[in-house]
């Protein structure tokens, strides 16, 4: 029946290294192949959402309640803040649900781990893919806001890097959560306890210095708030402390990466 030419190959022996680019690239190529089948819907919503938000919050509120915040027109304030919301919603949520579905329902990871790919490479590739994608989608609200009148600035060119560091961290968070929960319904707790509060106290829609002092302290630990500050720094002028903020986001990504690898190893290797 077959016209194939499979033959037993001669013996070769090589010890493969950790974090091989070929393994990470292979896993990412799988994500890319799948992404090509659904990119239109995802991209459509990622572009439309900031426009709707800007119309509703920015133009709606600025016409009735808030004209500006700390001297910044409210449309531009919200538009720059929405970069953070786009990043968390296109990193933490796809990482949580995507990882869970691929592991529990599609058995995708069993197939990948039967190839010369280890859990660390698998998690790194998944995080990297989600991170790159979310950093692209994260820039969309900024571009839309420019369309709404925000002046382009050279500092904005660093925005994709800020988004990438944050998205990597939240992708790691999502992967770790997917490896930890027993049932997909439990993501409701994760969303209610972590994702929504982080999003609300990020300073995307209102300044956090209006919040109670205790909440302000917590908000300073919120990576999304740091991202919002960095994006606004790119649009309206950086502060020296922004370097510390960026370093904090990189540290967040690294910590989440190791937690995700540890949790997924416990889940995938019996």
């Amino acid at each position: 029946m077959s016209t194939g030419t499979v033959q037993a190959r001669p013996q070769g022996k090589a010890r493969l290294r950790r974090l091989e680019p070929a393994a990470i690239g292979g896993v990412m190529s799988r994500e890319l192949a799948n992404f090509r089948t659904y990119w239109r819907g995802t991209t459509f919503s990622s572009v439309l959402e900031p426009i709707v938000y800007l119309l509703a919050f920015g133009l709606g509120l600025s016409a009735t309640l808030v004209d500006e915040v700390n001297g910044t027109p409210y449309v531009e304030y919200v538009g720059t803040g929405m970069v953070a919301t786009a990043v968390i919603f296109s990193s933490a949520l796809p990482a949580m649900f995507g990882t869970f579905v691929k592991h529990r329902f599609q058995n995708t990871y069993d197939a990948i781990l039967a190839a010369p790919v280890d859990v660390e490479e698998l998690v790194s590739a998944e995080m990297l893919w989600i991170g790159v994608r979310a950093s692209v989608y994260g820039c969309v609200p900024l571009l839309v806001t420019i369309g709404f009148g925000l002046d382009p600035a050279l500092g904005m060119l660093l925005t994709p890097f800020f988004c990438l560091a944050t998205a990597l961290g939240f992708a790691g968070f999502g992967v770790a959560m997917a490896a930890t929960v027993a049932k997909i319904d439990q993501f409701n707790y994760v969303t209610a306890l972590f994702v929504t509060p982080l999003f609300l106290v990020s300073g995307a829609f209102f300044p956090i210095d209006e919040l109670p002092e205790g909440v302000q302290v917590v908000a300073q630990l919120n990576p999304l708030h740091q991202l919002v500050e960095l994006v606004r720094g790119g649009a309206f002028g950086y502060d020296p402390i922004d370097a510390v903020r960026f370093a904090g986001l990189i540290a967040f990504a690294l910590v989440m990466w190791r937690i995700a690898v540890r949790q997924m190893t416990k889940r995938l290797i019996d």
Partner: protein
Amino acid sequence: MAAMAAIELRGVVKSFGPITAVDGLDLDVPEGICLGLLGPNGAGKSTTMRLLTGQALPDAGELRALGHELPEDAKAARAEMGVVPQLDNLDVDVTVEDNLAVFARLYRVPNVGAAVDRALDLARLRERRRDAVDELSGGMRRRLLLARGLVHEPRLILLDEPTVGLDPQIRTQLWTLIDDLRSRGVTILMSTHYIEEAERLADEVAVMAAGKIISRGIPAELIAEHAGRETAEIYAPPDRLAEARTIAEADGLRVRPAGPAIAIVGSERAGNGAVPEDAVRRAASLEDVFVLLTGEEAE
């Protein structure tokens, strides 16, 4: 000179909480043969497969695959082996060729395009290369799954219940494909609980139960050793079956259930009257061996 072992397991133990899935397993698979790992559900076959890919870590024992120590060198071992899983885990929205290309990259195949073409020919799916997997029939998907595990021309193939749940026609197609691989000198370890599959494809059969190999040999030898030459099947009402069983066992014969009937194994050794006149006599089979050794009904 004896062929080098593609797989060597010594005293391997793997437990999941209170359940010991693999219990002191010793197993050698020489290069170039197809070994059928035959056992009932829960015998430890799939766990053995996962131990060989490093997806399960042993609690005790030594494992070696293609000369690589496991689990330390599992990644290098996996680069030279192909795995065909029991469950279909293809990417259903992605095209046939992209499914193959992704795995060619994961296996670091230098010429991805050529490897994909070769695998498409093997699976007889060249005409469907640009179709999404979702659009394929069950048999095509199964062939694709097999071709995906072979895209890098592995020296060793692990087939985990390759035809479970498939209809007879698709099963026969896959058997032809596996038989073709075997004839090319690829080492195959195939877990199955289908007797016919093991008889048809395996050079040797290892019967596994409760995490151990309880018997091993070429099918004809196993049959001769455990079941003799002939089996007599008796179809009758339950009270008569019970009576026939008692008489046969009193004559030192072994009796096993066979669906609605009973089977008296090694009936060629029966004394006068130990086997009823109306019994259906047939050649002893691997199924007789399997049921006698494992106590499970065969499929």
